[in-house]
C-alpha cells in the first residue's frame, strides 16, 4: 500500500460493545445536572450580577464632545464620513468595500439599506425645525447652490475642525480657528467662506443637544421603528462610542471581541476570530474582515469534518489521553 493510501485509509476498527452493562439513571443525572447548573448560575448572579452600561445618545454626544459632533456632522453633509464613503449596503461608494481575489460578496448583494448622509443626517432633520426663518433661508440657499459651491462651503467649514481634531489627537496646541463656548456648548468656526453652512451646523448642534436628532433619525420613515441603523452609524462615525470602548478594552487591537464591559468574563469562544485580526496580513489588510471570515469559514468546515481528515482524526489514538478517560476499563480488561 502506498504511503498516501496508508495516510488516507480510515483505520476505524471499532466494534459494537458486547461487554457488560451497569445500571445508569439518565433521568436522575439530567435532573441533578439542571439543579447544579441552575444553582451555579444563581450563585454567580448573586455574587457578581451582570453588566449594563447605559447606551450613548446623540444628545449626550453633542453635549459631551461638541467639536467632535460638529466635525462628524459636516463630514456627513460633505459626503466624507465613514458611512458616506462606506459602500454597500448603504450606498454605491467604495471606502469600505472588501473583496478577496475574484470574490466581491459585498458588491454582489448591493445597496439594500440606502443612506444618504447629507439628506438623512443633516438636511432632512433641519427641515423639520419650526419657527426658524434664518435656518430655512440657509437651507434653501444651500440646496439651490451648484454642487461645486456646496463642496467649497463644506470644506471651508470642515478644514478648521479637522485641524483641531488632528491637533487634539497629537497633543499639540489647539488652533484658535475653532472655539467652544463652555457655558452654552456652542461651537464657533472662524471662516468667511462657508456660506450658509455655519448657520446649518449651529442648528444641527442645537437640535442634537435637545435630543431631537435621536428621535428624528429613528422615526424618519414611520412612527413604530426598531431599526437603529441610522442613529447608530451616525454615532459610530464620531468619537464618543470609540472613546467609551477604549476605556472598556473593547477595541479590536485590545482583543475587544472577546471582552465584556467592566471586569466580567466575555466571549472567550471568540478567541480564534479575534486572533487573526492581531497578526499580518489580516491586521493591515483593507479587506481584513472578509479575509478573517473566509479563514474562519474554512476552519469551521474542517472542524465539522474532523472525522474525515487524516492525521487530525488519528491524533487521539496516537496521543493517549484516552488511557486516562478509560483507565478503569483498561484495568478491568
Amino acid at each position, binding site marked *: 500500500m502506498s504511503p498516501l493510501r496508508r495516510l488516507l485509509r480510515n483505520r476505524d476498527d471499532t466494534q459494537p460493545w458486547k461487554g457488560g452493562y451497569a445500571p445508569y439513571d439518565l433521568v436522575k443525572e439530567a435532573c441533578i445536572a439542571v439543579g447544579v447548573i441552575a444553582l451555579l448560575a444563581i450563585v454567580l448572579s448573586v*455574587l*457578581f*450580577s451582570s453588566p449594563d452600561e447605559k447606551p450613548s445618545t446623540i444628545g449626550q454626544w453633542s453635549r459631551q464632545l461638541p467639536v467632535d459632533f460638529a466635525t462628524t456632522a459636516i463630514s456627513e453633509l460633505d459626503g466624507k464620513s465613514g458611512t458616506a464613503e462606506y459602500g454597500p449596503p448603504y450606498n454605491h461608494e467604495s471606502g469600505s468595500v472588501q473583496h478577496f481575489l475574484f470574490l466581491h460578496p459585498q458588491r454582489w448583494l448591493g445597496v439594500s439599506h440606502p443612506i444618504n448622509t447629507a439628506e438623512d443626517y443633516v438636511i432632512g432633520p433641519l427641515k423639520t425645525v419650526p419657527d426658524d426663518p434664518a435656518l430655512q433661508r440657509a437651507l434653501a440657499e444651500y440646496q439651490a447652490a451648484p454642487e461645486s459651491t456646496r463642496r467649497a462651503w463644506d470644506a471651508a467649514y470642515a478644514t478648521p475642525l479637522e485641524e483641531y481634531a488632528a491637533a487634539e489627537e497629537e497633543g499639540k496646541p489647539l488652533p484658535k480657528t475653532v472655539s467652544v463656548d463652555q457655558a452654552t456648548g456652542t461651537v464657533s468656526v472662524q471662516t468667511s467662506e462657508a456660506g450658509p453652512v455655519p448657520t446649518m451646523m449651529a442648528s444641527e448642534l442645537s437640535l442634537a443637544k435637545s435630543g431631537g436628532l435621536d428621535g428624528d433619525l429613528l422615526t424618519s420613515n414611520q412612527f413604530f421603528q426598531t431599526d437603529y441603523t441610522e442613529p447608530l452609524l451616525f454615532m459610530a462615525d464620531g468619537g464618543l462610542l470609540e472613546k467609551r470602548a477604549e476605556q472598556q478594552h473593547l477595541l479590536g487591537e485590545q482583543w475587544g471581541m472577546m471582552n465584556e464591559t467592566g*471586569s466580567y468574563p466575555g466571549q472567550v469562544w471568540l478567541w480564534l476570530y479575534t486572533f487573526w485580526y492581531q497578526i499580518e496580513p489580516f491586521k493591515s489588510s483593507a479587506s481584513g474582515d472578509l479575509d478573517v471570515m473566509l479563514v474562519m469559514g474554512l476552519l469551521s468546515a474542517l472542524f465539522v469534518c474532523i472525522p474525515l481528515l487524516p492525521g487530525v482524526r488519528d491524533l487521539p489514538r496516537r496521543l493517549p489521553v484516552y488511557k486516562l478517560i478509560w483507565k478503569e476499563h483498561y484495568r478491568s480488561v
Partner: protein
Amino acid sequence: MLNPTGVAVLGAVFNLNHPAHVVHWHFIDLTVSNVIVIGVMLLVFALAIALPFPGAARRRGGAA
C-alpha cells in the same frame, strides 16, 4: 444601589463594574477574567479525566 458609572448593581456581592485588568504577553492581550475562565476550563478538563468516577463496584458487577 448605583456605582459611579450610574449603573444599577443590584444585590451583587462583588462589583465588577470597573475597567478590567489586562494580561499582556507579546501581542496577546487578555482580560484577567477571561484568563481565569480559560484556566478553570483547562483545570476542570484535567480533573474530569483524572479523577475516579463513583460506582466502580456496581460496574464490576455488571462486567462479570
